[in-house]
Protein backbone atom coordinates (compact mmCIF):
# COMPACT_ATOMS: atom_id res chain seq x y z
CA UNK A 1 0.00 0.00 0.00
CA UNK A 2 1.59 3.23 -1.16
CA UNK A 3 -0.69 5.40 1.00
CA UNK A 4 0.82 5.92 4.46
CA UNK A 5 -1.48 8.39 6.19
CA UNK A 6 -4.95 9.59 5.27
CA UNK A 7 -6.90 12.63 6.36
CA UNK A 8 -10.52 11.72 7.05
CA UNK A 9 -12.51 14.75 5.88
CA UNK A 10 -15.88 13.72 7.23
CA UNK A 11 -17.70 12.86 10.43
CA UNK A 12 -20.22 10.43 11.89
CA UNK A 13 -20.51 6.80 10.92
CA UNK A 14 -18.66 7.15 7.60
CA UNK A 15 -15.60 8.63 9.36
CA UNK A 16 -15.53 5.58 11.63
CA UNK A 17 -15.95 3.31 8.60
CA UNK A 18 -13.06 5.02 6.74
CA UNK A 19 -10.72 4.87 9.75
CA UNK A 20 -11.36 1.15 10.19
CA UNK A 21 -10.79 0.46 6.49
CA UNK A 22 -7.55 2.48 6.62
CA UNK A 23 -6.28 0.64 9.68
CA UNK A 24 -7.06 -2.72 8.07
CA UNK A 25 -4.70 -1.73 5.25
CA UNK A 26 -1.99 -0.39 7.58
CA UNK A 27 -2.78 3.25 6.79
CA UNK A 28 -2.65 5.80 9.61
CA UNK A 29 -5.74 7.95 9.99
CA UNK A 30 -5.83 11.63 10.90
CA UNK A 31 -9.35 12.71 11.79
CA UNK A 32 -10.30 16.31 10.99
CA UNK A 33 -13.09 17.43 13.30
CA UNK A 34 -15.13 20.51 14.10
CA UNK A 35 -15.22 21.74 17.68
CA UNK A 36 -18.50 19.84 18.15
CA UNK A 37 -16.93 16.48 17.28
CA UNK A 38 -13.84 16.56 19.51
CA UNK A 39 -15.11 13.63 21.57
CA UNK A 40 -16.59 11.62 18.70
CA UNK A 41 -15.91 7.92 18.18
CA UNK A 42 -13.95 8.74 15.02
CA UNK A 43 -11.72 11.11 17.05
CA UNK A 44 -11.06 8.33 19.55
CA UNK A 45 -10.27 5.72 16.90
CA UNK A 46 -7.99 7.91 14.80
CA UNK A 47 -4.21 8.01 15.25
CA UNK A 48 -4.35 11.80 15.38
CA UNK A 49 -7.07 14.43 15.59
CA UNK A 50 -7.02 18.02 14.35
CA UNK A 51 -9.68 20.59 15.09
CA UNK A 52 -10.51 22.51 11.91
CA UNK A 53 -12.83 25.17 13.21
CA UNK A 54 -16.09 25.80 15.03
CA UNK A 55 -19.17 23.57 14.81
CA UNK A 56 -20.91 25.05 11.74
CA UNK A 57 -20.00 23.01 8.63
CA UNK A 58 -19.13 26.07 6.56
CA UNK A 59 -16.30 26.92 8.94
CA UNK A 60 -15.10 23.34 9.29
CA UNK A 61 -16.15 20.32 7.17
CA UNK A 62 -17.21 22.40 4.14
CA UNK A 63 -14.01 24.45 3.87
CA UNK A 64 -11.84 22.71 1.26
CA UNK A 65 -8.82 24.91 1.95
CA UNK A 66 -8.90 24.18 5.67
CA UNK A 67 -9.21 20.46 5.06
CA UNK A 68 -6.29 20.31 2.61
CA UNK A 69 -4.19 22.52 4.87
CA UNK A 70 -4.88 20.10 7.72
CA UNK A 71 -3.83 17.17 5.50
CA UNK A 72 -0.56 18.88 4.55
CA UNK A 73 0.38 20.01 8.01
CA UNK A 74 -0.21 16.57 9.50
CA UNK A 75 1.88 14.83 6.86
CA UNK A 76 -0.99 13.03 5.12
CA UNK A 77 -0.42 11.69 1.61
CA UNK A 78 -4.11 10.98 0.95
CA UNK A 79 -7.54 12.40 1.73
CA UNK A 80 -10.85 10.52 1.93
CA UNK A 81 -13.91 12.77 1.56
CA UNK A 82 -16.61 10.24 2.55
CA UNK A 83 -20.10 11.24 1.33
CA UNK A 84 -21.89 14.58 1.58
CA UNK A 85 -19.87 17.65 2.63
CA UNK A 86 -17.02 18.15 0.09
CA UNK A 87 -17.16 14.69 -1.46
CA UNK A 88 -18.44 15.84 -4.86
CA UNK A 89 -16.67 19.18 -5.07
CA UNK A 90 -14.23 19.10 -7.94
CA UNK A 91 -12.39 21.97 -6.22
CA UNK A 92 -11.34 19.67 -3.38
CA UNK A 93 -10.01 17.00 -5.73
CA UNK A 94 -8.15 19.72 -7.65
CA UNK A 95 -6.66 21.24 -4.50
CA UNK A 96 -5.47 17.79 -3.40
CA UNK A 97 -3.84 17.17 -6.78
CA UNK A 98 -2.06 20.54 -6.64
CA UNK A 99 -0.53 19.59 -3.30
CA UNK A 100 0.41 16.00 -4.12
CA UNK A 101 -2.26 14.54 -1.90
CA UNK A 102 -4.01 11.48 -3.30
CA UNK A 103 -7.75 12.17 -3.44
CA UNK A 104 -9.63 8.93 -2.75
CA UNK A 105 -12.13 9.36 -5.57
CA UNK A 106 -12.29 10.25 -9.25
CA UNK A 107 -10.37 13.03 -10.97
CA UNK A 108 -11.59 16.62 -10.67
CA UNK A 109 -12.55 16.91 -14.35
CA UNK A 110 -14.71 13.79 -14.13
CA UNK A 111 -16.46 15.11 -11.00
CA UNK A 112 -17.10 18.37 -12.86
CA UNK A 113 -18.45 16.67 -15.98
CA UNK A 114 -20.77 14.33 -14.11
CA UNK A 115 -21.87 16.97 -11.61
CA UNK A 116 -23.40 19.04 -14.43
CA UNK A 117 -26.76 17.40 -15.14
CA UNK A 118 -26.94 18.35 -18.81
CA UNK A 119 -23.36 17.30 -19.51
CA UNK A 120 -23.96 14.03 -17.67
CA UNK A 121 -27.04 13.36 -19.83
CA UNK A 122 -25.04 14.06 -22.97
CA UNK A 123 -22.29 11.68 -21.83
CA UNK A 124 -24.87 8.98 -21.10
CA UNK A 125 -26.56 9.46 -24.47
CA UNK A 126 -23.19 9.32 -26.18
CA UNK A 127 -22.43 6.03 -24.44
CA UNK A 128 -25.74 4.58 -25.60
CA UNK A 129 -27.30 4.60 -22.14
CA UNK A 130 -31.07 5.13 -22.31
CA UNK A 131 -32.52 8.44 -21.13
CA UNK A 132 -36.19 9.06 -20.41
CA UNK A 133 -37.60 9.27 -23.95
CA UNK A 134 -38.62 12.81 -24.78
CA UNK A 135 -39.00 15.42 -27.48
CA UNK A 136 -37.60 18.75 -28.55
CA UNK A 137 -39.73 21.87 -28.30
CA UNK A 138 -43.41 21.45 -29.00
CA UNK A 139 -45.37 24.34 -30.43
CA UNK A 140 -49.01 23.25 -30.46
CA UNK A 141 -51.52 20.76 -29.01
CA UNK A 142 -51.62 19.02 -32.40
CA UNK A 143 -47.86 18.50 -32.35
CA UNK A 144 -48.10 17.30 -28.76
CA UNK A 145 -50.75 14.69 -29.63
CA UNK A 146 -48.53 13.38 -32.41
CA UNK A 147 -45.53 13.14 -30.10
CA UNK A 148 -47.58 11.41 -27.38
CA UNK A 149 -48.71 8.78 -29.85
CA UNK A 150 -45.05 7.99 -30.49
CA UNK A 151 -43.93 8.00 -26.82
CA UNK A 152 -47.03 6.26 -25.46
CA UNK A 153 -49.28 7.65 -22.73
CA UNK A 154 -48.94 8.74 -20.00
CA UNK A 155 -46.65 11.65 -20.85
CA UNK A 156 -45.55 14.74 -18.97
CA UNK A 157 -45.25 18.22 -20.47
CA UNK A 158 -42.56 20.45 -19.00
CA UNK A 159 -41.42 24.04 -19.50
CA UNK A 160 -38.12 24.26 -21.43
CA UNK A 161 -36.90 27.15 -19.35
CA UNK A 162 -38.17 26.12 -16.00
CA UNK A 163 -38.47 23.80 -13.10
CA UNK A 164 -40.40 23.54 -9.87
CA UNK A 165 -43.51 22.15 -11.53
CA UNK A 166 -44.68 25.34 -13.24
CA UNK A 167 -45.87 24.81 -16.78
CA UNK A 168 -45.89 21.09 -16.06
CA UNK A 169 -48.79 18.65 -16.47
CA UNK A 170 -49.36 14.93 -16.85
CA UNK A 171 -51.52 13.79 -19.78
CA UNK A 172 -53.11 10.37 -20.05
CA UNK A 173 -54.92 10.89 -23.38
CA UNK A 174 -55.40 13.33 -26.29
CA UNK A 175 -58.23 15.11 -24.49
CA UNK A 176 -56.08 16.05 -21.51
CA UNK A 177 -53.44 17.52 -23.86
CA UNK A 178 -56.08 19.71 -25.49
CA UNK A 179 -57.41 20.72 -22.08
CA UNK A 180 -54.07 21.69 -20.50
CA UNK A 181 -51.61 22.70 -23.23
CA UNK A 182 -52.46 26.38 -23.61
CA UNK A 183 -52.74 27.03 -19.88
CA UNK A 184 -49.37 25.32 -19.23
CA UNK A 185 -47.71 27.30 -22.00
CA UNK A 186 -48.92 30.65 -20.68
CA UNK A 187 -47.98 29.63 -17.16
CA UNK A 188 -44.45 28.93 -18.38
CA UNK A 189 -44.35 32.22 -20.25
CA UNK A 190 -45.40 34.08 -17.12
CA UNK A 191 -42.98 32.28 -14.84
CA UNK A 192 -39.90 32.03 -17.02
CA UNK A 193 -40.51 34.48 -19.85
CA UNK A 194 -40.59 31.55 -22.27
CA UNK A 195 -43.71 29.56 -23.11
CA UNK A 196 -41.90 26.73 -24.88
CA UNK A 197 -42.84 23.23 -23.74
CA UNK A 198 -41.32 19.81 -24.33
CA UNK A 199 -42.56 16.30 -23.61
CA UNK A 200 -41.22 13.28 -21.74
CA UNK A 201 -42.56 9.83 -21.14
CA UNK A 202 -44.17 9.78 -17.69
CA UNK A 203 -43.07 6.95 -15.41
CA UNK A 204 -45.93 6.22 -13.09
CA UNK A 205 -44.65 3.24 -11.20
CA UNK A 206 -40.97 4.07 -10.88
CA UNK A 207 -38.31 2.32 -8.89
CA UNK A 208 -35.02 3.97 -8.07
CA UNK A 209 -32.26 1.53 -8.98
CA UNK A 210 -28.54 2.20 -9.05
CA UNK A 211 -25.45 0.25 -10.06
CA UNK A 212 -22.41 0.23 -7.80
CA UNK A 213 -19.26 0.26 -9.87
CA UNK A 214 -15.56 0.99 -9.64
CA UNK A 215 -12.95 1.78 -12.27
CA UNK A 216 -9.16 1.61 -12.46
CA UNK A 217 -8.76 4.89 -14.35
CA UNK A 218 -7.47 3.09 -17.44
CA UNK A 219 -10.84 2.14 -18.86
CA UNK A 220 -11.59 -1.04 -16.93
CA UNK A 221 -14.80 -0.84 -14.89
CA UNK A 222 -16.34 -3.54 -12.72
CA UNK A 223 -19.86 -3.49 -11.27
CA UNK A 224 -20.92 -4.80 -7.87
CA UNK A 225 -24.56 -5.36 -8.73
CA UNK A 226 -27.50 -3.00 -8.31
CA UNK A 227 -29.41 -1.56 -5.39
CA UNK A 228 -33.09 -0.71 -5.12
CA UNK A 229 -33.62 2.51 -3.16
CA UNK A 230 -37.28 3.17 -3.83
CA UNK A 231 -38.38 3.81 -0.24
CA UNK A 232 -37.84 7.57 -0.21
CA UNK A 233 -39.18 10.65 1.45
CA UNK A 234 -38.62 13.96 -0.33
CA UNK A 235 -35.94 12.30 -2.48
CA UNK A 236 -34.15 11.13 0.68
CA UNK A 237 -33.58 7.39 0.76
CA UNK A 238 -34.88 5.65 3.86
CA UNK A 239 -34.52 1.93 3.05
CA UNK A 240 -32.14 0.47 0.45
CA UNK A 241 -31.65 -3.09 -0.67
CA UNK A 242 -29.63 -5.30 -2.98
CA UNK A 243 -30.49 -6.76 -5.38
CA UNK A 244 -33.61 -5.23 -6.99
CA UNK A 245 -35.51 -8.48 -6.51
CA UNK A 246 -38.31 -7.85 -8.96
CA UNK A 247 -36.10 -7.03 -11.95
CA UNK A 248 -36.01 -9.73 -14.65
CA UNK A 249 -32.55 -11.25 -15.13
CA UNK A 250 -32.13 -10.07 -18.75
CA UNK A 251 -32.98 -6.48 -17.84
CA UNK A 252 -30.61 -6.65 -14.88
CA UNK A 253 -27.71 -7.63 -17.15
CA UNK A 254 -28.56 -4.76 -19.48
CA UNK A 255 -28.64 -2.36 -16.51
CA UNK A 256 -25.20 -3.45 -15.30
CA UNK A 257 -23.80 -3.27 -18.83
CA UNK A 258 -25.13 0.29 -19.28
CA UNK A 259 -23.42 1.52 -16.12
CA UNK A 260 -20.13 -0.15 -17.03
CA UNK A 261 -20.31 1.25 -20.57
CA UNK A 262 -20.87 4.80 -19.34
CA UNK A 263 -18.05 4.74 -16.80
CA UNK A 264 -15.52 2.93 -18.99
CA UNK A 265 -16.01 5.51 -21.71
CA UNK A 266 -14.88 8.15 -19.19
CA UNK A 267 -11.99 5.97 -17.95
CA UNK A 268 -13.59 6.46 -14.57
CA UNK A 269 -11.36 5.97 -11.54
CA UNK A 270 -12.44 4.74 -8.09
CA UNK A 271 -15.95 3.97 -6.79
CA UNK A 272 -19.05 5.47 -8.35
CA UNK A 273 -22.76 4.85 -8.68
CA UNK A 274 -24.93 5.19 -11.77
CA UNK A 275 -28.54 5.97 -10.87
CA UNK A 276 -31.52 4.94 -12.98
CA UNK A 277 -35.27 5.21 -12.98
CA UNK A 278 -36.76 1.74 -13.43
CA UNK A 279 -40.08 1.78 -15.26
CA UNK A 280 -41.55 -1.47 -13.98
CA UNK A 281 -44.61 -1.52 -16.28
CA UNK A 282 -42.68 -0.87 -19.49
CA UNK A 283 -39.72 -3.03 -18.40
CA UNK A 284 -37.25 -0.21 -19.15
CA UNK A 285 -34.70 1.89 -17.30
CA UNK A 286 -33.55 5.45 -17.83
CA UNK A 287 -30.38 7.24 -16.74
CA UNK A 288 -30.69 9.80 -13.92
CA UNK A 289 -27.16 10.73 -12.79
CA UNK A 290 -23.78 9.49 -11.59
CA UNK A 291 -22.65 9.89 -8.00
CA UNK A 292 -18.88 10.25 -7.85
CA UNK A 293 -18.44 9.19 -4.22
CA UNK A 294 -18.96 6.29 -1.88
CA UNK A 295 -22.65 6.31 -0.98
CA UNK A 296 -24.48 5.95 2.32
CA UNK A 297 -26.04 2.68 1.13
CA UNK A 298 -22.79 1.02 -0.04
CA UNK A 299 -22.97 -1.67 2.72
CA UNK A 300 -25.79 -3.59 1.02
CA UNK A 301 -23.55 -4.10 -2.02
CA UNK A 302 -20.73 -5.20 0.28
CA UNK A 303 -23.06 -7.71 1.92
CA UNK A 304 -24.12 -9.36 -1.35
CA UNK A 305 -20.66 -9.37 -2.97
CA UNK A 306 -18.35 -9.82 0.03
CA UNK A 307 -16.12 -6.94 -1.13
CA UNK A 308 -15.10 -4.13 1.22
CA UNK A 309 -15.75 -1.11 -1.01
CA UNK A 310 -13.97 1.47 1.16
CA UNK A 311 -10.84 -0.68 1.26
CA UNK A 312 -11.20 -1.11 -2.50
CA UNK A 313 -11.31 2.71 -2.81
CA UNK A 314 -8.03 3.01 -0.90
CA UNK A 315 -6.37 0.28 -2.94
CA UNK A 316 -7.39 1.84 -6.25
CA UNK A 317 -6.29 5.30 -5.07
CA UNK A 318 -2.99 3.84 -3.89
CA UNK A 319 -2.38 2.39 -7.35
CA UNK A 320 -2.22 -1.17 -6.08
CA UNK A 321 -2.06 -3.82 -8.79
CA UNK A 322 -5.11 -6.04 -8.62
CA UNK A 323 -7.07 -3.47 -6.59
CA UNK A 324 -9.98 -3.90 -8.94
CA UNK A 325 -11.28 -7.49 -9.12
CA UNK A 326 -12.15 -9.21 -12.40
CA UNK A 327 -15.88 -9.07 -13.14
CA UNK A 328 -16.17 -12.86 -12.80
CA UNK A 329 -14.75 -12.60 -9.26
CA UNK A 330 -17.72 -10.48 -8.18
CA UNK A 331 -20.44 -12.98 -7.31
CA UNK A 332 -23.84 -11.68 -6.35
CA UNK A 333 -25.46 -13.82 -3.68
CA UNK A 334 -28.01 -13.37 -0.88
CA UNK A 335 -30.16 -10.34 -0.12
CA UNK A 336 -29.33 -7.33 2.02
CA UNK A 337 -31.46 -4.44 3.33
CA UNK A 338 -30.27 -1.24 4.97
CA UNK A 339 -32.33 1.16 7.10
CA UNK A 340 -31.16 4.65 7.90
CA UNK A 341 -31.58 5.47 11.57
CA UNK A 342 -32.28 9.15 12.06
CA UNK A 343 -32.65 11.26 15.17
CA UNK A 344 -35.96 12.69 14.03
CA UNK A 345 -39.59 12.50 15.01
CA UNK A 346 -41.49 10.79 12.19
CA UNK A 347 -44.76 11.43 14.02
CA UNK A 348 -44.06 15.16 14.17
CA UNK A 349 -43.24 16.16 10.60
CA UNK A 350 -39.77 14.56 10.84
CA UNK A 351 -38.54 17.24 13.23
CA UNK A 352 -34.84 16.67 13.99
CA UNK A 353 -34.34 15.67 17.61
CA UNK A 354 -30.71 16.05 18.60
CA UNK A 355 -29.75 15.28 22.18
CA UNK A 356 -27.95 12.85 24.42
CA UNK A 357 -28.31 9.11 23.88
CA UNK A 358 -28.77 7.69 27.36
CA UNK A 359 -28.98 4.11 26.17
CA UNK A 360 -27.70 2.61 22.92
CA UNK A 361 -28.30 -1.08 22.44
CA UNK A 362 -28.02 -2.30 18.86
CA UNK A 363 -29.17 -5.77 17.79
CA UNK A 364 -26.63 -8.49 17.08
CA UNK A 365 -26.56 -11.93 15.54
CA UNK A 366 -26.19 -13.71 12.23
CA UNK A 367 -26.60 -11.39 9.24
CA UNK A 368 -26.81 -8.21 11.34
CA UNK A 369 -24.46 -5.29 10.83
CA UNK A 370 -24.69 -1.87 12.43
CA UNK A 371 -22.58 1.00 11.06
CA UNK A 372 -22.73 3.80 13.61
CA UNK A 373 -20.71 6.34 15.55
CA UNK A 374 -23.11 6.32 18.49
CA UNK A 375 -22.51 4.94 21.97
CA UNK A 376 -24.09 5.23 25.41
CA UNK A 377 -23.89 8.88 26.46
CA UNK A 378 -23.14 10.24 22.97
CA UNK A 379 -24.51 13.69 22.32
CA UNK A 380 -26.04 14.02 18.83
CA UNK A 381 -25.10 17.59 17.89
CA UNK A 382 -27.70 19.82 16.24
CA UNK A 383 -25.38 21.13 13.50
CA UNK A 384 -25.32 18.24 11.05
CA UNK A 385 -27.69 15.78 9.43
CA UNK A 386 -29.71 13.61 11.72
CA UNK A 387 -28.44 10.17 10.71
CA UNK A 388 -27.19 8.25 13.75
CA UNK A 389 -26.46 4.94 12.08
CA UNK A 390 -27.40 2.26 9.60
CA UNK A 391 -28.82 -1.16 10.30
CA UNK A 392 -27.90 -3.65 7.58
CA UNK A 393 -29.35 -7.15 7.58
CA UNK A 394 -28.46 -10.00 5.25
CA UNK A 395 -30.19 -13.29 4.54
CA UNK A 396 -30.35 -15.85 1.73
CA UNK A 397 -33.36 -14.27 0.01
CA UNK A 398 -35.63 -11.23 0.29
CA UNK A 399 -38.48 -12.76 2.34
CA UNK A 400 -36.11 -14.07 5.02
CA UNK A 401 -34.21 -10.79 4.92
CA UNK A 402 -37.37 -8.76 5.55
CA UNK A 403 -38.28 -11.03 8.47
CA UNK A 404 -34.81 -10.67 9.94
CA UNK A 405 -35.00 -6.88 9.49
CA UNK A 406 -38.29 -6.68 11.42
CA UNK A 407 -36.82 -8.70 14.31
CA UNK A 408 -33.58 -6.71 14.36
CA UNK A 409 -35.51 -3.41 14.44
CA UNK A 410 -37.55 -4.72 17.38
CA UNK A 411 -34.32 -5.56 19.21
CA UNK A 412 -32.82 -2.12 18.61
CA UNK A 413 -33.14 0.04 21.73
CA UNK A 414 -32.20 3.72 21.69
CA UNK A 415 -33.16 5.96 24.61
CA UNK A 416 -32.72 9.63 25.38
CA UNK A 417 -33.87 11.03 22.06
CA UNK A 418 -36.56 10.47 19.48
CA UNK A 419 -35.63 8.33 16.50
CA UNK A 420 -37.38 7.04 13.39
CA UNK A 421 -37.29 3.44 14.73
CA UNK A 422 -41.12 3.28 15.03
CA UNK A 423 -41.45 4.26 11.36
CA UNK A 424 -38.82 1.73 10.23
CA UNK A 425 -40.57 -1.01 12.24
CA UNK A 426 -43.86 -0.05 10.60
CA UNK A 427 -42.29 -0.22 7.11
CA UNK A 428 -40.69 -3.61 7.77
CA UNK A 429 -44.06 -5.10 8.74
CA UNK A 430 -46.15 -3.43 6.03
CA UNK A 431 -47.78 -5.77 3.51
CA UNK A 432 -46.56 -3.76 0.48
CA UNK A 433 -42.97 -3.83 1.72
CA UNK A 434 -43.11 -7.56 2.51
CA UNK A 435 -44.50 -8.34 -0.95
CA UNK A 436 -42.07 -5.92 -2.66
CA UNK A 437 -44.93 -3.92 -4.12
CA UNK A 438 -43.99 -0.23 -3.95
CA UNK A 439 -42.49 2.68 -5.92
CA UNK A 440 -40.65 5.92 -5.21
CA UNK A 441 -43.79 7.76 -4.06
CA UNK A 442 -45.12 4.88 -1.96
CA UNK A 443 -43.65 6.04 1.37
CA UNK A 444 -45.22 9.50 1.03
CA UNK A 445 -48.51 8.48 -0.58
CA UNK A 446 -49.37 5.21 1.12
CA UNK A 447 -47.18 4.35 4.05
CA UNK A 448 -46.94 7.67 5.92
CA UNK A 449 -50.73 8.28 6.04
CA UNK A 450 -51.20 4.72 7.36
CA UNK A 451 -48.39 5.20 9.87
CA UNK A 452 -49.89 8.45 11.15
CA UNK A 453 -53.25 6.74 11.48
CA UNK A 454 -51.67 3.88 13.43
CA UNK A 455 -50.17 6.31 15.94
CA UNK A 456 -53.54 7.91 16.65
CA UNK A 457 -55.18 4.54 17.28
Amino acid at each position, binding site marked *: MSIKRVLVANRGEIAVRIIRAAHALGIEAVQAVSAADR*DSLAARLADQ*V*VVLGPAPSKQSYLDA*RLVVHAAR*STGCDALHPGYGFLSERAALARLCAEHDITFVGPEADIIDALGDKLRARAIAEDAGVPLVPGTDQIASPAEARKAAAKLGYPVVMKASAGGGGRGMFVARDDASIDASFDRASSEALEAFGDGTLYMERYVENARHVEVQAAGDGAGRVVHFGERDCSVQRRYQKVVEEAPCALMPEALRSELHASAVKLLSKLKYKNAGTVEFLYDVERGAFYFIEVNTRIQVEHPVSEQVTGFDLVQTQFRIAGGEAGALPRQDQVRLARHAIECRLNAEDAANNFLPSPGRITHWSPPAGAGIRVDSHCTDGYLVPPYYDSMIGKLVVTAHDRPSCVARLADALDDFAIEGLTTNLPLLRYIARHEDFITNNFHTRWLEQTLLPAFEQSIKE
Partner: protein
Amino acid sequence: MSQATPADIENLVELFNRSDWEEMHLKTDGLEIFLSNDPAARPPGQAAAAAAAAAPAPEAAPAAPAAASAPHMTPAVTAHDVVIPAGMVAVRAPNLGTCYRAPKPGAPPYVEVGQKVDADTEVCLIEVMKLFTPVKAGVNGTVREICASDGQMVEYEQVLVIIEPDA
Protein backbone atom coordinates in the same frame (compact mmCIF):
# COMPACT_ATOMS: atom_id res chain seq x y z
CA MET B 1 -6.17 37.99 46.33
CA SER B 2 -8.23 35.11 44.92
CA GLN B 3 -5.47 33.62 42.79
CA ALA B 4 -2.01 34.98 42.09
CA THR B 5 -0.96 35.55 38.51
CA PRO B 6 2.64 35.21 37.35
CA ALA B 7 2.64 38.98 37.20
CA ASP B 8 1.66 39.23 40.85
CA ILE B 9 4.58 37.01 41.78
CA GLU B 10 6.96 38.98 39.61
CA ASN B 11 5.82 42.15 41.36
CA LEU B 12 6.39 40.59 44.77
CA VAL B 13 9.89 39.44 43.82
CA GLU B 14 10.67 42.91 42.54
CA LEU B 15 9.36 44.51 45.74
CA PHE B 16 11.47 42.13 47.82
CA ASN B 17 14.59 42.85 45.78
CA ARG B 18 14.20 46.58 46.22
CA SER B 19 13.58 46.25 49.96
CA ASP B 20 16.17 45.76 52.66
CA TRP B 21 14.33 42.72 54.02
CA GLU B 22 16.15 39.48 54.76
CA GLU B 23 13.14 37.22 54.33
CA MET B 24 9.53 37.37 53.30
CA HIS B 25 6.90 34.72 53.96
CA LEU B 26 3.48 35.24 52.44
CA LYS B 27 0.58 32.86 52.82
CA THR B 28 -2.92 33.26 51.37
CA ASP B 29 -5.70 30.79 50.49
CA GLY B 30 -4.21 29.48 47.30
CA LEU B 31 -0.61 30.56 47.52
CA GLU B 32 2.41 30.37 49.76
CA ILE B 33 5.61 32.25 48.94
CA PHE B 34 8.90 32.30 50.84
CA LEU B 35 11.59 34.67 49.68
CA SER B 36 15.01 34.93 51.29
CA ASN B 37 18.46 36.37 50.60
CA ASP B 38 19.99 33.29 52.19
CA PRO B 39 20.13 30.35 49.72
CA ALA B 40 20.12 27.89 52.63
CA ALA B 41 17.04 29.36 54.29
CA ARG B 42 13.79 27.36 54.40
CA PRO B 43 10.27 28.51 55.21
CA PRO B 44 9.09 27.65 58.72
CA GLY B 45 8.20 23.94 58.99
CA GLN B 46 8.75 23.14 55.28
CA ALA B 47 11.31 21.58 52.97
CA ALA B 48 13.15 22.88 49.93
CA ALA B 49 10.22 22.87 47.46
CA ALA B 50 9.11 26.37 48.27
CA ALA B 51 12.41 27.87 47.27
CA ALA B 52 11.57 27.19 43.65
CA ALA B 53 8.60 29.48 43.96
CA ALA B 54 10.97 32.35 44.47
CA ALA B 55 12.45 31.89 41.04
CA PRO B 56 10.92 33.88 38.19
CA ALA B 57 7.78 32.19 36.91
CA PRO B 58 8.85 29.78 34.18
CA GLU B 59 7.29 29.91 30.74
CA ALA B 60 4.56 27.32 30.49
CA ALA B 61 4.98 27.04 26.72
CA PRO B 62 7.53 24.20 26.49
CA ALA B 63 5.05 21.89 28.22
CA ALA B 64 2.52 22.08 25.39
CA PRO B 65 4.55 20.59 22.49
CA ALA B 66 5.62 17.73 24.74
CA ALA B 67 2.00 16.84 25.37
CA ALA B 68 1.13 17.23 21.69
CA SER B 69 2.75 13.96 20.64
CA ALA B 70 -0.25 12.10 21.96
CA PRO B 71 -0.03 8.33 21.91
CA HIS B 72 -2.24 6.15 19.72
CA MET B 73 -5.90 5.80 20.72
CA THR B 74 -6.03 8.89 22.91
CA PRO B 75 -7.71 12.03 21.70
CA ALA B 76 -5.07 14.58 20.87
CA VAL B 77 -7.62 17.34 20.98
CA THR B 78 -6.85 18.28 24.57
CA ALA B 79 -3.10 18.31 23.97
CA HIS B 80 -2.93 22.03 23.34
CA ASP B 81 -4.76 23.03 26.47
CA VAL B 82 -2.80 25.73 28.17
CA VAL B 83 -3.69 26.90 31.66
CA ILE B 84 -4.69 30.53 31.46
CA PRO B 85 -3.79 32.27 34.71
CA ALA B 86 -6.64 34.18 36.32
CA GLY B 87 -7.03 37.69 35.04
CA MET B 88 -5.15 36.92 31.83
CA VAL B 89 -6.70 36.81 28.37
CA ALA B 90 -5.88 34.14 25.80
CA VAL B 91 -5.78 35.00 22.12
CA ARG B 92 -6.88 31.86 20.30
CA ALA B 93 -6.69 30.58 16.72
CA PRO B 94 -9.88 31.37 14.75
CA ASN B 95 -9.44 28.14 12.76
CA LEU B 96 -6.84 25.54 11.92
CA GLY B 97 -3.82 26.90 10.08
CA THR B 98 -0.13 27.67 10.20
CA CYS B 99 0.88 30.34 12.70
CA TYR B 100 3.44 32.98 11.74
CA ARG B 101 4.89 35.38 14.30
CA ALA B 102 6.15 37.90 11.74
CA PRO B 103 4.54 39.54 8.68
CA LYS B 104 7.20 37.96 6.44
CA PRO B 105 10.25 35.73 6.82
CA GLY B 106 13.14 37.62 8.42
CA ALA B 107 10.98 40.51 9.63
CA PRO B 108 10.81 41.25 13.34
CA PRO B 109 7.98 39.48 15.16
CA TYR B 110 4.66 41.26 15.60
CA VAL B 111 4.98 41.06 19.38
CA GLU B 112 7.39 39.92 22.08
CA VAL B 113 6.84 39.08 25.74
CA GLY B 114 6.50 42.22 27.79
CA GLN B 115 5.30 44.33 24.89
CA LYS B 116 2.34 46.67 25.30
CA VAL B 117 -0.52 46.02 22.87
CA ASP B 118 -3.92 47.50 22.23
CA ALA B 119 -7.01 45.68 20.98
CA ASP B 120 -6.12 46.27 17.32
CA THR B 121 -2.48 45.22 17.55
CA GLU B 122 -1.77 42.24 15.32
CA VAL B 123 -0.09 39.48 17.30
CA CYS B 124 0.39 36.84 14.57
CA LEU B 125 -0.77 35.56 11.19
CA ILE B 126 -2.75 32.40 10.49
CA GLU B 127 -2.19 30.96 7.04
CA VAL B 128 -4.54 28.53 5.28
CA MET B 129 -3.44 27.59 1.76
CA LYS B 130 -1.56 30.88 1.19
CA LEU B 131 -4.44 32.90 2.56
CA PHE B 132 -3.14 34.96 5.48
CA THR B 133 -5.41 36.23 8.22
CA PRO B 134 -4.02 38.54 10.91
CA VAL B 135 -5.01 37.78 14.48
CA LYS B 136 -5.51 40.79 16.74
CA ALA B 137 -4.94 41.07 20.47
CA GLY B 138 -8.56 42.00 21.11
CA VAL B 139 -7.65 43.71 24.38
CA ASN B 140 -5.36 46.47 25.68
CA GLY B 141 -2.57 45.06 27.82
CA THR B 142 0.85 43.48 27.98
CA VAL B 143 1.99 40.30 26.24
CA ARG B 144 2.91 37.81 28.97
CA GLU B 145 3.42 34.63 26.98
CA ILE B 146 3.71 33.45 23.39
CA CYS B 147 2.39 29.91 23.08
CA ALA B 148 2.71 29.14 19.36
CA SER B 149 6.02 29.11 17.54
CA ASP B 150 6.69 30.44 14.06
CA GLY B 151 5.52 28.06 11.34
CA GLN B 152 3.68 25.77 13.75
CA MET B 153 0.33 24.19 12.82
CA VAL B 154 -2.31 25.38 15.23
CA GLU B 155 -5.81 24.04 15.66
CA TYR B 156 -9.07 25.88 16.13
CA GLU B 157 -9.13 27.62 19.55
CA GLN B 158 -5.51 26.80 20.30
CA VAL B 159 -3.90 29.46 22.53
CA LEU B 160 -1.51 31.67 20.56
CA VAL B 161 -0.67 34.48 22.97
CA ILE B 162 -1.49 35.30 26.59
CA ILE B 163 -2.10 38.93 27.42
CA GLU B 164 -2.44 40.64 30.75
CA PRO B 165 -5.12 43.28 30.29
CA ASP B 166 -4.53 46.79 31.55
CA ALA B 167 -6.13 47.44 34.90
